[in-house]
């Protein structure tokens, strides 16, 4: 892996904070980074790897920051990106928002974290839960040498500390499925898939052993059971706490959970899903005078279910003005800085159909710049429902002390990358 140094830059290319881990790349090399980036942007050929001489810059952008790693080796690029994203994740957990201001306000903690996350160019302790045990934002308060190495740093179970205690032992299980859909302008579904994840909020004492049962088709096939609906998951990924060997063997998901919130597993289902909210749109543009938009939305899911907080974003030309709306339900709002109309519907029952009409004026003097054709995007959330039909059949919790613990399960289906291309 070996990153020589890590830099955090602002949007103008000024170094906000940096850490030289290896000392084998001159720290002033970073001055070339921004020039290269500008040059590439001008040519329209931005690339996440840039090279100057034998120094390579691997960079990502997060809000108004660039995070850059430099290396002079042919190192493993995806590992470096993964590390930079890990930095973002850790910083975000510390400061809520990772942006220029939070870096400047918390530079002491940032330095401390950079020091622990990596040493000599190699990732060390990167789990933010563990880091939070010995690097705190309250560090500015004077504490007399109370800091001890937390047990987790040296523990056999690196993701959980020993000796946790809760009055009430509970686990909350969230099954969340996001639907990605791409529909082309003729209304045919180009691609669709479901990305699911099972999230845990664990509030359990001690070192509990958990076992999760799902209606997984492969498991049912092994055990010879064949009742009810089953689901074939592809591309299943687990948190490091899950014993992979057991899953490979008998499809049991058994683990010692991390404390607090964590993502236990994720999966992908690559079936053809019917778009849950179907949009038909007619966008008519009359040059120099007006744009007329008609959008019809239809809930293509069970009548008993309700989609909440539905937001349908319809693109409009950037020079449009004087909006007028008419909706059969919900309300529409023009967001000029994003060049779209948001039609929000608080609750959208299955099987229903709604209509929105919008009218915009266009200036008589057209602007020269050509505009792209952004798609219509839809956001929604359907509780108590999973598209794939996945279900948690049981969650067993076993701890030495033998306490009773309660598992709570919640299902949510939401929109992921949900795009419908427009003809305009």
């Amino acid at each position, binding site marked *: *892996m*070996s990153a020589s140094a890590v830099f955090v830059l602002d949007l103008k290319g000024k170094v*906000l*904070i940096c850490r030289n881990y*290896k000392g*084998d790349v001159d720290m002033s090399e970073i001055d070339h980074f921004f020039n290269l980036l500008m040059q590439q942007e001008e040519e*329209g*050929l931005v*690339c*996440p*790897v*840039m090279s100057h001489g034998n120094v*390579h810059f*691997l*960079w*990502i952008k997060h809000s108004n920051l660039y995070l850059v790693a430099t290396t002079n080796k*042919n190192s*493993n*690029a*995806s*590992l470096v*990106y*993964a*590390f930079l*994203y890990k930095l973002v994740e850790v910083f975000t957990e510390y400061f809520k928002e990772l942006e220029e201001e939070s870096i400047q306000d918390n530079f*002491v903690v940032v*330095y*401390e974290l950079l*020091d622990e996350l990596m*040493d*000599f160019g*190699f990732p*060390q*302790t*990167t789990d933010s839960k563990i880091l939070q045990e010995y690097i705190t934002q309250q*560090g*500015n308060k*004077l504490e*007399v*040498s109370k*800091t*001890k*190495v937390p047990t987790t740093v*040296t523990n056999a179970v*690196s993701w959980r500390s020993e000796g946790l205690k809760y009055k009430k032992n509970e686990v909350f299980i969230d099954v969340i499925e996001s639907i990605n859909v*791409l529909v082309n302008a003729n209304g045919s579904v*180009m691609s669709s898939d479901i990305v699911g994840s099972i999230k845990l909020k664990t509030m359990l004492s001690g070192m509990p052993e958990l076992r999760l049962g799902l209606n997984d088709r492969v498991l049912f096939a092994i055990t010879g059971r064949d009742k009810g609906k089953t689901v074939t998951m*592809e*591309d299943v*990924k687990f*948190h*490091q706490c899950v014993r*992979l*060997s057991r899953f*490979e063997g008998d499809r049991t998901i058994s683990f010692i959970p991390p404390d607090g919130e964590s993502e236990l597993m*994720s999966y992908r289902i690559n079936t053809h899903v019917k778009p849950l909210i179907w949009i038909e749109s007619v966008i008519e543009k009359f040059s120099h005078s007006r744009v007329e938009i008609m959008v019809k939305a239809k809930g293509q899911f069970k009548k008993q279910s309700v989609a909440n907080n539905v937001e349908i974003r319809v693109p409009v030309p950037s020079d449009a003005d004087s909006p007028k709306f008419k909706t059969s339900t919900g309300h529409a709002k023009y967001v000029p800085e994003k060049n779209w109309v948001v039609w929000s519907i608080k609750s959208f029952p299955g099987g229903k159909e709604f209509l929105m009409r919008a009218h915009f004026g266009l200036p008589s003097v057209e602007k020269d710049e050509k*505009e*792209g*054709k952004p*798609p219509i995007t839809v956001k929604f959330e359907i509780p108590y429902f999973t598209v794939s039909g996945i279900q948690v059949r049981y969650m067993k919790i076993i701890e030495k002390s033998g306490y009773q613990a309660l598992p709570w399960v919640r299902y949510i289906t939401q929109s992921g990358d949900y795009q419908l291309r427009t003809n305009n």
Partner: protein
Amino acid sequence: MPYFGSEETVKELKRALANPHVQADRLRYKNYITKVIRYMTQGLDVSALFMDMVKASATVDIVQKKLVYLYMCTYASDKPDLALLAINTLRKDCADPNPMVRGLALRNMCNFRMPGMPEYIEQPIVAGLRDKASYVRRVAVLGCAKLHSLQPNTDIDGSIVNELYALLRDPDPVVVVNCLRALEEILKDEGGVVINKPIAHHLLNRMKDLDSWAQSEVLTFLLRYRPRSDDELFDILSLLDAFLQSAHAHVSVATLRLFLNLAAAHPAVQADALLHTSAPLLATCGSASRELRFAGLCHVQQVMRSQPGLFGTHYKRFFCGYSEPSYIKFRKMEILVELVNDENVALVLEELRSYCTDVSPELAQAAIAAIGRIARTYSEKCLDILTGLLALKQDHITSAVIQTFRDLVWFCPQSTAAVCQTVEACVDNPQDSEGKQALLWLLGEHGEQISSAPYVMEGYIDGLKTELSSAVKMELLSTSVKMFLCRPAETQDMLGRLLHYCIEEESDMCVRDRALLYYRLLQRGVEETRKAVTGPKSDPSMSVLTGRQEEPISLWASTFNTLGPLSGRDLCLQTDIISASEQPSSSAEEELLPGSKDVTLSSPNDTEEEISLSLGPPLSHETFEKMWLDLEILHRQTLGFPRPKTAADTLQAALQLVKIQTLAFTPGDTVPWKAYLYTRGTGTLILAELLQEDPDEPGSEGSLVVSVKQQPGNQHTIRGFVAILKSVLQTLHFDRL
């Protein structure tokens, strides 16, 4: 960046830090230290405070300690003498009862990059290696590597190396991986850390305890290990099997790399591993992070070099999202071009068509180039789309389409007529120099098929004074000379004007020399010029047909999952346009050289027998069968090599290129293998059979035998036909070797 008043600030801070009242109030003292670090972060030179900061390191507050250490590390190389003063404090901290403090002090002491350090840090490092807290051991192990990098030219300390090897058995997983990392650095000159059988097996068993970073790196280290036997190899692979599906993309890709390298001798295992990882790879291509998505796409591209079919059914995953950055879109388009097949071609083209009108001209041009690549196989559909794009009358689109046409004609001569027709009908000429060059090249090569060619060219010659690009001028010269050769009456006058201008008035020496060259050439006579100037009108290597061959995995397995594939050939489609635009003009250079003719399709000894074949009206199976039975074999020849192992449709396409139609052939690898062909030439119909007997059978050498029948008979045509057929089959055969 020192700014105005910085000296004042430093002085003020110095005063404050030295103030006993401030020192007494811990909180105020610490606030001042924080201030110093803030200024340091902002780029102010606060190195003058070194002494005061060293004093501040004697504290029980661990955050303050960290800040002071950070300060010292930053300025140690500027103030080596003062830094030495701090060493005592640091060494004392290395013996602190709190392991956090010990680790911290040791790590920072090792980070002082200045001469003279080794003698002070060696002892604490060795002590740290045996510390009971793993936190300190982790730091100490990497400290060994830092120690070595401080004195790179000294001998390697054998005892430290041994100790590090022993620590590979440490219970703490991070210590284990740090040991590998440190040994790798220390033993760099000797080829890095040695992975022998016990170490390899130990690491394999520890894999599941490691965090994802460590897993990735250990997998990379394991690349160095060669299992003794196949049994051991398969044991290792089955231990690692689960990691192919790891939650972390970088781990699964690293595992794949190890699989590919270890199982180099077992193609079936490699193929299986690739199949297993195709799902995680595809998932990375849809990852939330653009950079990881990009890396995933690069990996997919590498895999496709050997297994083009692996992602065939998932082509929709490579459709571009609206908000994706262009570097991802470029890669996706490259992949889509490779994934095209009979079933998905319509959808893929429709998708690419929608990218052609993208706001970004680079993207639009790349999409057009991608359609051009597909056109080499599915000419008709693509030509329709490209022609449709011309109607949009957008400069950058027109230019890209014309460039694509030029490449298409070069690679697929059968599309020439259609292209010429379109170019003829196209009223807007490209405005940028690449587009102009492409148009001129087309006019020059196929001027006889474009009736308006001289008028278009005249426009360029008249506008010569305002033309800035010398490349366009050079192309114009070549075009005018070529055109003069085929349509002298219309072009003689303008060629004269052009040569006169270029020789007398042009300031660019290259253009002038080129004009002089053509001038002298023309003085030698028209026939001489024709010989020198005209060359093959299409790609003689038939790279279209053989270009898509599967490469052995070993070609790319060694660079898999490194930085190389991401930065090596950035934005391939883009460079494709550029390199392709150089291609024909560089071949124009070659054309001037005598002897370059041997590369043409008909090999040199057949030149006088060169005949032109044509397909004519199609022949039905029944007619062929009847004629084959009626006619007698006029010629039989053993070709001297076995049948090319290409796919049947490649063979068919290759023969079609030289106007030989394949009527029927035995599928797959069945023996004896037969194929029936027909063509027309010099007014005769030629029927032929290719036959390959079982190579194991006595009497046959596993070589192809061609039998030819003809109506009416003409030995000259048969010889020409056999020569062409032979050269095509030979090309395919040797390309597969």
